[in-house]
């Protein structure tokens, strides 16, 4: 009861703080800046917040909070633009949105998909805030109930979504997820520091591959290349069908799905250490399992957009709990947020356990500023979505060079290495072939995302469990099989069983014809070679670092088994079997006027030129050549477009204080920014 006695006045104080015109003004300013940053894939909240940091010092706390929260809150909303319109996952929060959002855009229903996504986002954000208001004062014990075994189970639940997204041949989905996990283990192991598929002679790989690069490579590169080959617009026949009101209506028809996914988002977001990357997949899996007619998933099912989008904004609210209550950031942007709060005012607001006791009014202000920012951001996004959706009617050959530029820039921002762009290209190649031969790309990405949590939590939980077992058997069992673990275990088993039964009707890659044996078998052998190499490499780690080798060995072993069975099946089955799915046999890719390698060479050319001339100069050359030769634009159009795009790039880079990839030329000669 006394909880309410302190919570209610604090809530009233919070509203009094928020509802001042100047505070709302700062909030709107933050939202607008967040939208501007968020539409650039791969930049997201971290870049935006870093931009604001210099102004936070000594600022009036509630104003600074309004500015920062406005910015953070809209990133998971605005990155929906690139997910839906271009098939580029803007951030880890919108990967699942790509699966159905982009096919909708290709059907000419971009505005509908966008407005459904935004409405779902808005609703998720509000549900999150409402839930938090009640929950935050009692959240502490619940958060502490989630130990390592529980977190491991949630990661495994996330992984079990592979079953739903495995595609027509379940073994291929399993192998794709296994390959994703193996690629996720590349680099220095967290536990013992052993190197896996990396060497200190080539330092780039020792840090592992960044999620941004893998996300862009797996989803964006294959779609861009495929569309460019077909030389058409994203929306078929360059027409827009459904408008934005349809999207709002779609959301209303699926409001209960939206409620459930919002709650999933808040609850998973509350658990520190998981981050947001599982949430949208769990929500997507839930959306699939609760839909009667599953045939449209992967081809443009609106429920596949509403589910993940409801959860990803709600997750931001949930993520505030570990951030504010424990001082433990749930994400990169939250880490900067914590640092920035210490700079505000006289520096006396300290995020952590004391926050609820000393600053409950500020805590509530943060929760409701987040909700308000969601409302403002969503309304702005819906307002412009009809206009922005027209992008999908432009001939894609005009869009492609800018998208290549955007994803190369985004990849470079993740680590500021030239190798980042090379890695994007390499992962892009994997993505292209996974798509071509109908190996589930979502399964690959889920494997990659969850590789680190699964490895970390299983090692740590194993270590602590064996410590408990040494004390007594009961204590050990109690630790591993807590009630939460048992519930999660049951949910996981049900989701795998249902998922496998349903997977055949869900075609994440759309319809794919089958063809001859040769190309699919060659691709399988390439993967097999990598898996064997990775296994041998992991096996070479000395036994005293067992924690570093056990997960790659187990995952690699399972993947190898799956691949060998597939190989046997491929040898035995006749040509034309579904196992030999190949997009180059029939359909859009096969009929495309341009070849794969020729199209890819343009992108490779941009990378090679960057290596020599640096990004900005290479870009100028690339855009001019591409527009003249491939798009056959007139000289004035070519030059105007090139100049406009380079100017935009420089304004963005300059405002965010970001460098562009340098090349050999920059090593030799000192050039002024932005050429340096």
């Amino acid at each position, binding site marked *: 009861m006394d909880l309410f006695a302190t919570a209610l006045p604090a809530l009233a104080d919070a509203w009094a703080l928020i509802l001042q015109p100047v505070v709302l003004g700062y909030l709107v300013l933050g939202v607008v800046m967040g939208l501007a940053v968020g539409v650039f894939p791969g930049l997201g909240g971290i870049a935006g917040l870093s931009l604001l940091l210099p102004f936070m010092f000594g600022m009036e706390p509630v104003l600074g909070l309004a500015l920062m929260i406005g910015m953070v809150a809209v990133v998971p909303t605005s990155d929906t633009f690139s997910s839906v319109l271009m098939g580029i996952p803007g951030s880890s929060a919108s990967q699942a949105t790509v699966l159905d959002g982009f096919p909708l855009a290709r059907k000419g229903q971009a505005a509908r998909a966008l407005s459904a996504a935004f409405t779902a986002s808005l609703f998720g954000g509000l549900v999150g805030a409402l839930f938090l208001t009640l929950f935050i004062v009692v959240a502490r014990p619940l958060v502490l109930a989630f130990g390592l075994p529980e977190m491991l189970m949630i990661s495994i639940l996330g992984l079990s979504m592979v079953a739903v997204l495995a595609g027509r041949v379940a073994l291929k989905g399993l192998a794709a997820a296994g390959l994703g996990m193996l690629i996720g283990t590349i680099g220095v192991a967290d536990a013992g*520091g052993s190197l896996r598929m990396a060497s200190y002679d080539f330092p780039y790989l020792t840090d592992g591959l960044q999620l941004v690069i893998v996300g862009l490579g797996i989803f964006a590169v294959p779609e861009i290349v495929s569309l460019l080959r077909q030389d058409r617009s994203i929306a078929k026949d360059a027409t827009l069908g459904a408008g934005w009101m349809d999207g709002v209506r779609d959301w209303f028809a699926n409001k209960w799905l939206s409620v459930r996914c919002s709650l999933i988002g808040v609850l998973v977001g509350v658990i520190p250490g998981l981050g947001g990357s599982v949430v949208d997949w769990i929500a997507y899996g839930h959306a699939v399992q609760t839909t009667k007619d599953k045939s449209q998933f992967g081809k443009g099912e609106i429920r596949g957009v509403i589910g993940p989008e409801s959860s990803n904004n709600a997750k931001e609210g949930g993520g505030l709990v570990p951030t504010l209550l424990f001082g433990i950031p749930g994400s990169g942007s939250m880490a900067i947020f914590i*640092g920035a709060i210490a700079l505000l005012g*006289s520096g006396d607001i300290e995020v952590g356990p004391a926050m609820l006791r000393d600053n409950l009014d500020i805590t509530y202000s943060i929760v409701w500023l987040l909700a308000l920012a969601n409302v403002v951001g969503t309304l702005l996004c819906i307002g412009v979505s009809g206009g922005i959706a027209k992008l999908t009617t432009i001939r894609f050959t005009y869009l492609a060079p800018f998208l290549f530029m955007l994803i190369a820039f985004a990849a470079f921002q993740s680590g500021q290495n030239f190798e980042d762009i090379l890695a994007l290209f390499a992962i892009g190649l994997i993505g292209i072939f996974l798509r071509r031969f109908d190996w589930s790309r979502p399964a690959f990405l889920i494997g990659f995302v969850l590789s680190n949590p699964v490895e970390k939590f299983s090692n740590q939980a194993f270590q602590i469990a064996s410590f408990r077992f040494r004390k007594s058997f009961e204590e050990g069992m109690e630790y591993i099989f807590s009630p939460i673990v048992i519930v999660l275990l049951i949910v996981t088993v049900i989701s795998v069983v249902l998922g496998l039964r349903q997977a055949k009707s869900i075609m994440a890659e759309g319809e794919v014809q089958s063809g001859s044996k040769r190309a699919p078998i060659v691709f399988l052998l390439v993967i097999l070679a990598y898996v064997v190499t990775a296994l041998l490499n992991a096996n070479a780690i000395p036994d005293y670092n067992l924690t570093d080798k056990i997960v790659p060995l187990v995952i690699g072993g399972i993947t190898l088994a799956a691949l060998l069975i597939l190989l046997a099946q491929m040898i035995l089955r006749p040509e034309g079997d579904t196992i030999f799915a190949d997009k180059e046999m029939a359909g859009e890719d096969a009929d495309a006027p341009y070849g794969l390698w020729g199209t890819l060479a343009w992108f490779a050319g941009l990378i090679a030129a960057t290596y020599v001339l640096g990004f900005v100069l290479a870009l100028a050359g690339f855009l001019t050549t591409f527009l003249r030769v491939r798009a056959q634009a007139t000289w004035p159009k070519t030059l105007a477009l090139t100049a406009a795009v380079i100017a935009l790039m420089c304004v963005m880079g300059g405002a965010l204080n970001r460098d562009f990839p340098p090349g050999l030329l920059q090593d030799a000669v000192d050039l002024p920014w932005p050429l340096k």
Partner: protein
Amino acid sequence: MTIKRLATSVAAIALMAGPALAEVDFSGKTIEWVIPFSETGGSAKWANFFAPLLSEELPGNPTVVVKFMPGAGSTKGANWFQEQEHKDGTLLFGSSGSTQFPYLLNDPRVRYEYNDWIPVMATGTGGVAYLNPEDGAKFDGSANGLKDVDLIFGSQGATGLDLVPLLAWKMLGMNVEPVFGIKGRGDGRLMFERGEATIDYQTSSGYLSGAADLVAAGTAVPMMTWGALDENGNIVRDPTFPDMPSFKEVCAATDGCETEGVAWDAWKAFFISGYPSQKIAFLPKGTPQDVVDTYVAAFEAVRSRPDFAEISSNEVGRYPMFVGAGAEKATDEATTVSPEAKAYVIDWLKEAYGVTIE
């Protein structure tokens, strides 16, 4: 030098017939402060705190921006800085204990040399170890009662700052099993709060903002601080926690723990590198003395702000902020370790955790 500068100043006054400005002027320039970690770490917080203050005090009030160059446990950024030469004084670099330890341990990734760089400012911190109430009751100022207790500690890795507590507990004869692979000390505290870990430590600010509440609630029992350095390089009680014994006192009271000899020297060397001289700001090699002096004066001015103690409480606590010659001494202490001490730590890391640095 002084005469030469006097002469140029006089000449400048004569030429401009105006008030003498400092020779170094950063008007309209942008100073890049490169941090070899990501935006989310403690060094980012540190640089973001100092950047606006530095901007106010440097002549010409240049914009000071913090740039992040994470990778390979900060050795990537440090290797990059090693290759930079002085241009116009607009480049600053921030190193941390995680940059210093690989250097001390001969990590193969290290291609940087601290002796080439010019330190202008250094800050430090302290650390506090604490136990769960059950095992904490067995602690009586010595660790004698803790020797046959098995303890679990959530650790970020044996070759980082956790090296200092792990080595301290080992010297006390305690059996602490590290669970590796956590990210950040906050995660370690959470593991402790969940009852999965039974011993933990936090840096001073982390202790005050997080763990002190646990102590107040009776769910944690403080054990010791790492101590602090006095002017003569002796380890004394930490000024932030004057009521807590330092590791030196606990070690002296515990059977089998020596406060001299190679193990102690090794611990002390890594302690100094990781805590009292944890974060250091450097100018690149070849920076002329007038630029160095300008930075030292600016940091000096930051330190003497009347409100500095108040606004910096989260960043530097009650620990001294070193500037100029003090920073040089701090850097010297943070990056020097005797060959015996180094060999001792390398052997121990290999034997206890199978960590080899080749």
